[in-house]
């Protein structure tokens, strides 16, 4: 039996106390708060884009040549593109694609990546370990962007296939992370005692080892949201991700690049939006890392 199942009310008040302490640790670094606010704001703008965007119609195929290529002004704070669509509104809708990309890729990647890492780490030194870790080596032998580009290129270019391609490249990072953790945890007393009372391998891996890997996994997920969004925007930039007229941030940067330097706002603002979103998730992830690391000491 694990210690968690003993008495529930006590556990709950403990949990609340921990939450308070963790929040204190997290909030001591102002940059973590900046990250949290940035991410919350991006999520808010993405979810409520149709309500908060000044020109929601401009999110897809929309043409208003009378207002084409306007430089930033009061009606169009970030200017308009060559067919007269408001850049700011399109950025809000672009956040949607970026966030969906990040969430879907992590949802596809984390369970198999973590499971393989747990299996390999727990069975360290056996053929299972060798097979799994050698396969991850293969996928880590090429920059993820390159293989993702290659996979995208043979499929029909769209957001769905871009997510599949990035997912195929991303799981080894989780396998490697969890492998390192699991291969040290397997020698801990609580694992040995579970083995001694005849617990199944599934129980040991998922009930004994996994709960102790949660904080690093969680931290990595927060950081990876940023990286996946970055790779997604890179794919969109070369035309293998979100397809026009939909407003992918990378797609918008690529569209605008043709009109540099005169209509600089068309690509510069979406580019800065990518930086903001990646920065937000990074600050948040670093805050979580500090919080968890302090807890382990």
């Amino acid at each position, binding site marked *: 039996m694990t210690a968690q199942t003993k008495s529930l009310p006590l556990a709950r008040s403990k949990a609340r106390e921990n939450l308070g302490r963790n929040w204190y640790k997290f909030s001591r670094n102002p940059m973590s708060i900046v990250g949290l606010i940035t991410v919350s704001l991006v999520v808010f703008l993405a979810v409520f884009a149709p309500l908060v965007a000044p020109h929601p119609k401009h999110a897809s195929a929309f043409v208003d040549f009378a207002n084409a290529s306007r430089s930033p002004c009061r009606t169009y704070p970030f200017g308009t593109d060559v067919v007269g669509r408001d850049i700011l509104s399109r950025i809000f809708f672009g956040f949607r694609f970026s966030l969906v990309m990040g969430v879907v890729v992590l949802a596809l990647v984390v369970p198999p990546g973590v499971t393989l890492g747990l299996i390999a780490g727990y069975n360290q030194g056996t053929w299972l370990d060798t097979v799994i870790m*050698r396969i991850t*080596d293969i996928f880590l*032998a*090429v920059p993820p962007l*390159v293989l993702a580009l290659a996979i995208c290129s043979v499929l029909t270019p769209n957001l769905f296939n871009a997510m599949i391609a990035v997912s195929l490249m991303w799981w080894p990072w989780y396998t490697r992370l969890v492998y390192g953790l699991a291969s040290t945890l397997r020698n801990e007393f609580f694992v040995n005692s579970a083995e001694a009372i005849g617990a199944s391998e599934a129980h040991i891996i998922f009930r004994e080892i996994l709960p102790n890997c949660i904080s690093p996994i969680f931290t990595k997920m927060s950081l990876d949201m940023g990286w996946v969004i970055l790779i997604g925007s890179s794919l969109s930039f*070369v035309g293998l991700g979100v397809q026009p007229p939909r407003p992918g941030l990378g797609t918008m940067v690529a569209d605008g690049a043709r009109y540099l330097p005169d209509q600089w706002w068309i690509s*510069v603002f979406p580019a800065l939006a990518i930086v903001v979103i*990646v920065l937000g998730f990074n600050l948040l992830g670093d805050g979580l890392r500090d919080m968890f690391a302090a807890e382990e000491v």
Partner: protein
Amino acid sequence: MKTMAFIARRVVHSIFVLFGLSLVIFTISRIMPGDPARMAVGARAPQWVVDNLREQMHLNDPLYAQYYYWLRDALHGDFGISLVTRRPVADDIKEFFPATFELALFAGIIMGGAGILLGTVSARHKDKWIDNVVRVISYLGVVTPSFVFAILFLLLFGMTLNWMPTMGRISTGLSRPSVVTGLITIDALLAGDLAVFFDALWHLILPGIALAMGGLAQEARITRSTMSDNLTKDYIASERSLGIPEKVIMRKFLLKPSLIPTISILGLDFAATLGSAFLVELIFNWPGISRYGINAMLRKDLNAIAAVIMILGVVFIIVNILVDLVVAQLDPRIRLAPGRGE
């Protein structure tokens, strides 16, 4: 002796990884819908031409046989004909690879040099204003995609201020030096042509820095953290107590152990550079293998895609072995340890 065994182990491991990579690439190239032979000759070619080509390309054989033929040819440096340029892919690669290598090398030098410099300064003046400046720079460097840097640099220094060239490897008026290494800067130096050397270097600066920024930031962060960790170690305190000047301590005793993690990461960042080069080369119209690869990908030119990825994989692995050797040279604990040196 130990080093030889170390290299041998790494080479065996690398061959395995490359073999696996070739399987992955082959799989990718076969999941594509459509008939590669039909795509090669175009929609208007008569059916018998397609049939002949299918036979020639071994497309009627079972998959494992196709893989065998593909791997056999690839090992002989034959990656087939590019559907776009209509030339052997190997020739294309030979032509375009040096440009990318030159760019990545330049970026790697900036990354290592500037990263270590910034990290050292930061660690020495910990929590002073300069440390904070470096921290902000490195944060922005890490989170900004290289293509965003490329576009901003292009706009600012290339187009608005007109300081820098915005495309290609060399100005149109100048003629390329005779090809020895394929790296224009080196070739120009060998030919003694300083004008071309500086022109080529000038062209390298914007795309090189755009590529280097991400890695540079990482290097600075890691150098700072290892160095400030090491600064609190006992051996530094005892050296200080002996009255050894701070500069000597920094240079002779602190730098070497502090650089080990930085150099390991530099290898990974160099590899990432090869990936980011795909976008940066596109923006600066750099005639390298990455721009070639992107065009191949956009046109579903399978032979070229497979070759480009394979070459990048090989380069990545060679770089990592070299990095491991350098690290082993710096760190006796790794050099002398039994088992896998990773």
